[in-house]
């Protein structure tokens, strides 16, 4: 019998095989070979692409290099979304490896945030964790942690140390049995067909009359269009970490096991492929 711990491990060690190719408009001294990499689903693009940068810089002149950014089929990729979310949102149901185009010019300021160093990623990551804990425990757990504990969470993510990260993250996932779950579930729902970046509202894991809320309950409240209607073919896929959990999955369990390291449950709603 598989254990819930295995889910955490599977989530953490999720990888997306990726092929980075240099944008053809970039000025190069010689032709750039594509670069293949296994990207951690739970990490951030700018955190794990030092190798990519190094690889392409070898064929470029220093003066032609500005801030690196990524694009997939015309969509600039937001580095502040977890890699897995970007993939599920834009590229799920496509042939692997995922082909990402690398740019060193014409940074799309309107679409992307600048990311000059990994400390920006750290600040973004830690603020997400704090926000999530504010929802889950009124910030009590994260405020009780010491500076070095925060560092341990970050270093765990940065160095892909599952044990190191979870030794600390465990505390963020605790709740008293009386409550039956977190205060609110930190979640974000992403839709490709929407103008809004994502949906984030207050939602409790347990209903006032004591019933456990499920993924279906959440969607019914947040985005009813994502739910299949009776008798109709399914129009949307609800994807978390590249899988489609059943709608009756308890939300609290999902939050504990399928949240990203930033402690948010990132849910992607994408159209069902038509083929």
């Amino acid at each position, binding site marked *: 019998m598989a254990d819930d711990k295995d889910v955490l491990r599977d989530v953490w060690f999720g*990888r997306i095989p990726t092929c980075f190719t240099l944008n053809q408009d970039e000025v190069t001294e010689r032709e750039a070979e594509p670069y293949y990499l*296994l990207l951690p689903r739970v*990490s951030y693009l700018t955190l794990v692409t030092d190798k990519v940068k190094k690889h392409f810089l070898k064929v470029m002149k220093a003066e032609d290099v500005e801030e690196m950014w990524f694009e997939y089929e015309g969509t600039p990729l937001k580095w502040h979304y977890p890699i897995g979310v970007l993939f599920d949102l834009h590229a799920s149901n496509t042939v692997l490896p995922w082909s990402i185009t690398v740019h060193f010019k014409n940074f799309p300021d309107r679409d992307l945030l600048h990311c000059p160093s990994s400390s920006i990623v750290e600040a973004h990551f830690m603020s997400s964790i704090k926000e999530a804990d504010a929802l889950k425990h009124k910030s009590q757990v994260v405020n009780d942690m010491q500076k070095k504990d925060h560092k341990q969470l970050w270093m765990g993510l940065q160095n892909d140390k599952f044990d190191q990260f979870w030794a600390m993250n465990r505390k963020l996932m605790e709740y008293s049995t009386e409550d039956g779950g977190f205060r609110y579930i930190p979640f974000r729902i992403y839709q490709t067909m929407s103008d809004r970046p994502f949906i984030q509202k207050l939602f409790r894991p347990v209903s006032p009359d004591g019933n456990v809320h499920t993924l279906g309950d959440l969607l019914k409240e947040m985005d009813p269009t994502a739910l299949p209607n009776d008798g109709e073919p399914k129009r949307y896929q609800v994807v978390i970490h590249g899988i489609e959990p059943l709608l009756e999955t308890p939300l609290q369990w999902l939050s504990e096991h399928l949240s990203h390291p930033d402690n948010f449950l990132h849910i992607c709603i994408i159209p069902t492929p038509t083929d």
Partner: protein
Amino acid sequence: MPVSLLWAVDVYGRVYSLSTAGQQWEQCHDTQMEFKRVTAAQQCCWGIACDNNIYLNVHASDLPIRYQEETYENQRWNPVDGFSERLLPSDRWQWSDVTGLQHQPMDSFQLPSHSWEWEGDWYADENFEGEPTEKGGWSYAIDFPATYTKDKKWNSCVRRRRWLRYRRYKAMDTWAKIPSQQSSLPDPFSDISCGGWEINEEPRGRLSLWAVSLQGKVWFREGIYHHNPEGCLWEEVPLPGEVVQISCGPGDLVWAVLWEGQLIVREGVGRDCPKGTSWTVVDSPSPGVGAIHVAVGNNVVWALTKDNKVWFRRGVNSHNPCGSGWLNMVGQMIMVNVGLNDQVFAISCEDRAVYFRQGVTSSELSGKTWKAITVPRDRDRSHSSASTNSLQSAGCYFCGEVRTQSVVSDVESDTDKVSTDGASCLVTFTSPESFADAPADLSDQPDETPKPRIPKVTSDSFISELVSDRGPGRAAAGSAAPAVLEEETCISAEGEVKDPCAGVALSPSQSGGPLDPQWSNVDLEEAQAQTGAVLDTAETSSLSSVATYTLAIEDQYVVDEHPLWAWVSGGGCSVDSHSQLSWFNCSLNTSSLIQSVQSMSLSVTPAQTAAWRKQIFEQLSERTKREIDNFRHFEQAIEQSVWVKKGTMQWWRDWKPHKWIDVHFALEQFSGPEGNKDGILFIYYNFCEEKKYLHAFVNEVTILVPVLSDSKHTFAIYTPERTKQRWPIRLAAATELEMHDWLALLSMSCCDSRGIHGPPSKQAIWSITCKGDIFVSEPSPSLEAMPYPTPCDQMFWRQVGGHLRMVECNSVGIVWGIGYDHTAWVYTGGYGGGFFQGLASSTDNIYTQSDVKSVYIYENQRWNPVTGYTNRGLPTDRYMWSDASGLQECSKTNTKPPSPQWTWVSDWAIDYSVSGGTDREGWQYAADFPASYHGYKTMKDFVRRRRWARKCKLTTTGPWQEIPPIPLSDVTILPCGAQSNVDAVPLWAISNKGDVLCRLGVTTLTPAGSSWLHVGTDQPFKSISIGAASQVWAIAKDGSAFYRGSVSSQSPAGDSWYHIPSPSKQKLKQVSVGRTSLYAVDENGNLWYRQGQTPRYPQGSSWEHISNNVRKVSVGPLDQVWIIADKVQGSHSLSCGTVCHRLGVQPMEPKGQSWDYGIGGGWDHITVRGNSIEPPRVHLCPQTDPSVSRSPLPVRNTEFDSNAVES
């Protein structure tokens, strides 16, 4: 924690029990009699009913109480008739006991009481001293009395044979009257107390039962033990005054209260004299106010004075049963009772609630505070007796064979009777069948139970029961019911408010005073029935009919919202200050009730089997296949850096003189070439002022073993090389916590480097060290390969939390274990526990586990002509207090528990159960140390010794759940192929008393099964094993083997035993059956293979010797043979208790050729019965290597024989 019961009686005389796992009082439904008092032991409960008779309620168990009656048939030879029943006038009787002195014809055997039944008819015992005899079971001799042999000789003039018949105690889980066969039996009993089970373990289940009569006399019940739960007779105990109440503890304490208010203490209670010899008077705690009540435990005495004050006696122990002084405690109580572990229960004067004394520990026997037990009664919560019954059975674990007659069936049978004989139904109802002796009793003594108003009462209670149980429709179905009943039910159906019949039943005189001081059967019956009805209706809206006629009196019974208790007995209730009890702050809510029921089931929780969960697991593994598996050659985005953890430890250095030296210890972890983690251990030490280091690769470490030590926190690290040397790296940490930190980290690092995560597979090989630690190894497919299997010193073992003495498994993932205290445990599917924290341990499926074992020391004495035996030995003698070998000094004060994890739970006590027997003081005699000892003194004996035992307890956690209540000594599970899908998996076990048991309902989803089926044997058994074709073999206590015939899925228990003689002059001790092979180990360490087994003749023909120095054998589903060898020589050291693997085992050569040596020493048990992975088939000529010894002990090691190393 085993589930046990707290018993209580309320002021109406109703008997209730509260399970330690439960959250409500369950009423004893099979009794229609009211009780005054109850006194409980773990196996039974005694009570005085309102008819002043004593009743016994023996708790049902899957193990029946069977008593073997025997008688001998004697015959003499004469030339005319041959052997005939015509004996000489000087001879014994034709039917006699074994000595011939007692005349015992078959028809002289009577059942002792109505509670017994015969199991079958008489039959002749065909076995004689462990050997099958010729026809008829006769044994022959020259004359009576003489030595008998099984062979008839020319001079055999007499012969005899033994006839056997079993009787069985049938009155389980019901109140059965103790027959008062003595006419001398006096005035009625007024108080009763049982205890004394810790004084003497022989005969098994012995109890002391003390009773007080109304005239103030004290009686002692003789002859109560397991096979005779009722005892045989009452014996009066002389007294210095008139006694009102008595209390007997689990040990040797017996106190009683005199009319005048003093207390008396029984002196001289002991192993040989459970009744004691004399009384000593102790004054009342309070000078002006006499004592009224006393309660004793193991080492405590609590008393109440007439002003309801509570007193605690200081300084009480078995050497000083009188204690030293009184302490006044808080609280006002009307009665107090001491249960197991000196835990205290009391009934408060003010609200009549049962209170539990919190914080009672062996160091603080007086406890801290009183806490009220606030759980509701079953009637408060639930109206359906059927459901309470099922709850009760769940709570008591009396699954399967619950003997309790359910109320539903009572009602049904009663309905029939009611319909036939109208008004006389009252008798039928007050005495349903399950109440064994009541009918006779009522008719015997009609004067004692006047029943003028019975018709009303009975119909009333009957209807309320009926309605609440079955609903109106069902009741109406009994169409021929008498008028009263019909009226009731009609009205029920229509829901009318007015009911003439009920109006009569509830005349003011009856409903007025529930607290009638006179204990009369009928009055109480009434009160009970009415109260029950009211409570039923007060909370239900669906049963409108009952509500209608009770509305009028509802408020009179509001007072009953919390029960009023009269008596409580904790003698069977196993709690201590650490027990997790849900008895307090319990609300009337059904969800918690459901929870409590769920928590008792061993099967998987719904969340774990839910579809959504399965879906996530499946999709995640699909995702891995889709996104990762084909791209493993891609570079990882994040390079793994080196991570180092350092510390200081002590190291048992490799060279002589061996000693502990301080070292620096470091673990470097990094990512291996394939992305898996790896690491290196470094041990930095100084040698001759020079810094040096020793290292080991984490991926070469085969096992990390915590080592038993009372002074240091040590563990050993093995690699294949070090296993060959029998010389591990031994390290000691400064504290236990530090050691556990390192072990958890190292263990995780080792698992990471080998890519092992999560729970062990179904094929896993389980083993146990002599310390009780559990290890598991994943077998590689080539482990059983021919001709080049994986050497077994390369097997990687990881630890699983928990503490066991043995473990058995099979290849569908069913794993059972048995603790040192014989508790049975089932594996829950988790991993980790113990010192594994966080990620190394599963979240679900980890439970608290405890184990108890005894530590033994020896008291040695030498005889001298002047003073006799003294503790002054010769200068050359061993220590006067020593271990078994005499080499180590072990006094009572300096002997510590085996390791800091263990704590003492008892005091030192003389151990009489030593092989060879002892005298009355536990001494064994011998001519000199060391020698063979015997249990009696002869002229040649100059030394003597006796063994002292002290129990210690360990509490840990692990993926194990207890299977109460029967303690086991051996267990075996059918080994099946990995793919086979058997519904119910055959599982057999031996109880610690030698009973053979067959577990029903064992499946992969419910590995704990549901209930035991007892399989009768003529003697106790000690080992059992079942093979893949359901062939069951067992070893009896006398060392011979038995084969069980006709075991199949239709007949899981088979039909009969076939006796198989043991190898000549050897007593077998353990057996293991694989697919077809059968191996057995004898008491001298020889390993035997059973020759000549065929499907048509599964018993086989003869034993073939395979090896010596074998401690245990495990034969797997591939017929692979693994043993624990006693002694194996390595290049650096010798190891005892080593895992060895038989090489060269093939279908045509099941005996194999040689041994391969694996992990050890210090191993105690292994099971390979889960490993059904067929090895890759390679066809090569069988390799024969004459140089490999047949025995685990190569010849050159015989020098070690004399000083067997205790591992």
